[in-house]
């Protein structure tokens, strides 16, 4: 029984279907990566799971609950966290306030979770009084992760966590993702750095033109000749613009 199971997801924005019959599943404690060319519907699939996009067809279950079409303020207390790619911190709130907002749906003592986030991301501890908007890109990403971790989620959805970061920070962020996963949090992420992402992933989904193309373990996808040729090549030119 998967922690997250999305089946037959079909839908898009303004009457245009971006996703067609997409399935995605994540088991507890797994790292699952969604890769694919630009416009393949990777981020859209993630948004559909998190209820930010109304599905025309399909269903999503999470931890035994049917969550199809549920709004975030229901999903977050169930144990799902979402880190968007851009605008993922409250810039005028301090780092600490950002983390407190992450725990908004909780009414119990959050100091343990806060301490754990500071352990995972030591730079945040020193800057906890600073407005998040003043931090570097990598540190903002840490705040965004930390914010989503404050509910002690079972599953974290990460939309291109390394987008726009320097290679040095990318490694750092991947290390942190693995560390978060080791604390018992399932990870579902969309990633442009497909090779690196599949390297840390238990399983991967290759999407193209809004449909599932390949589903396999990270290692098998990396070894798959066709995947390597079409989706791990130098750029995103193959199939690019398909689903846009």
């Amino acid at each position, binding site marked *: 029984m998967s922690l997250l199971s999305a089946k037959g997801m079909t839908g898009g924005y303004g009457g245009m279907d971006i996703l067609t019959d997409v399935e995605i599943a994540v088991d507890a404690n797994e790292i699952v990566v969604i890769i694919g060319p630009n416009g393949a519907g990777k981020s859209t699939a993630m948004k559909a799971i998190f209820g930010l996009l109304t599905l025309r067809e399909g269903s999503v279950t999470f931890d035994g609950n049917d969550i199809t079409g549920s709004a975030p303020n229901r999903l977050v207390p169930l144990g799902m966290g979402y880190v968007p790619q851009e605008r*993922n911190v*409250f810039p*005028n*709130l301090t780092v600490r*306030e950002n983390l*407190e907002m992450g725990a908004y*749906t909780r009414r119990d003592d959050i100091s343990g979770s806060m301490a754990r986030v500071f352990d995972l991301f030591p730079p945040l501890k020193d800057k906890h009084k600073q407005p998040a908007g003043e931090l570097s890109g990598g540190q903002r990403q840490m705040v965004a992760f930390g914010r989503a971790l404050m509910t002690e989620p079972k599953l974290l959805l990460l939309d291109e966590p390394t987008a726009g970061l320097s290679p040095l920070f990318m490694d750092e962020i991947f290390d942190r993702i693995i560390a978060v996963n080791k604390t018992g949090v399932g990870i579902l992420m969309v990633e442009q750095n497909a090779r690196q992402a599949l390297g840390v992933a238990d399983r991967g989904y290759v999407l193209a033109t809004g449909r599932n193309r390949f589903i396999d373990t990270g290692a098998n996808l990396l070894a798959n000749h066709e995947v390597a040729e079409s989706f791990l090549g130098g750029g995103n030119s193959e199939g690019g613009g398909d689903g846009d």
Partner: protein
Amino acid sequence: MAIEFFNDYLLSALILGSIYALGAIGISMIYAILRFAHFAHGDALSIGAYVALPLVALGVHPVLTIPIAMAVTAVLAIGIDRAFYKPFRKSQPIIMVIASFGVALMIRAAIQLFGGVDDHYYWGIQPPMEALEPFAIAAKHFYIFGSVIALIGATHYLLAYTRTGKAMRAMSDDADLARITGIGTEKIVIWTWIVGAALAAAAGVLLGMDTRIRPDMGWNLLLPMFAAAILGGLGRPYGAIAGGLVIGAMEELSTLVIPGDYKSAVAFAVMVLVLIIRPQGIFKGRVL
């Protein structure tokens, strides 16, 4: 010379600035959280002033009417939101702006209907206190400044230390992210109306304590309050407070160099200049 400056300019600048500040907080937060310019905000001041009027007539001290005026105006604001703004929540902002313009006209008409068109006063002319000669400070000034300090202190406490207040700031920073974070945004919208309308109502009572109560008292302050909110940075409540004090001071001090009749043009000029030179305002708020 310095004493004259205090009596003739500084005192009134501080009072006017404080009233603008209290009104501008709501305008700024409503703009950031509900994403529209609330044209009926001035009339929320008028509601507050008129709610206090019968209480003062019954012998209640004007300062003590402030909490009642705040509560009544907040409840009315929530009702007005349900009836006139909520149905348009997903429409374009301009539709909400025009709806609020209509609400402003309705409020003013209702006030004229029930309160008449004549000026009202909470109390007669207050002579300066002899003990404080040569400063022309009257008792009302203590009531006004004491109230302003208490209100701004309470607002600061709410925004900086309470869960709801922080969520209001979070939502005015980024409403989409607030939703993703699991913050119940409709609840924060209601709190925004409560805080915005309550502070406006208090400002209305304070304005009535300082001068007089008339149906268009709030509407006439709409422009300087907007100028204050924009100057401070939309969505930045502390910016709105600073902006209110600056606009109030500039309007009063402008009478040193230009005729007093042009005073209200100062706020307009400041607003235009800010929008051209630094549209995000002093505290880096949203761009209109």
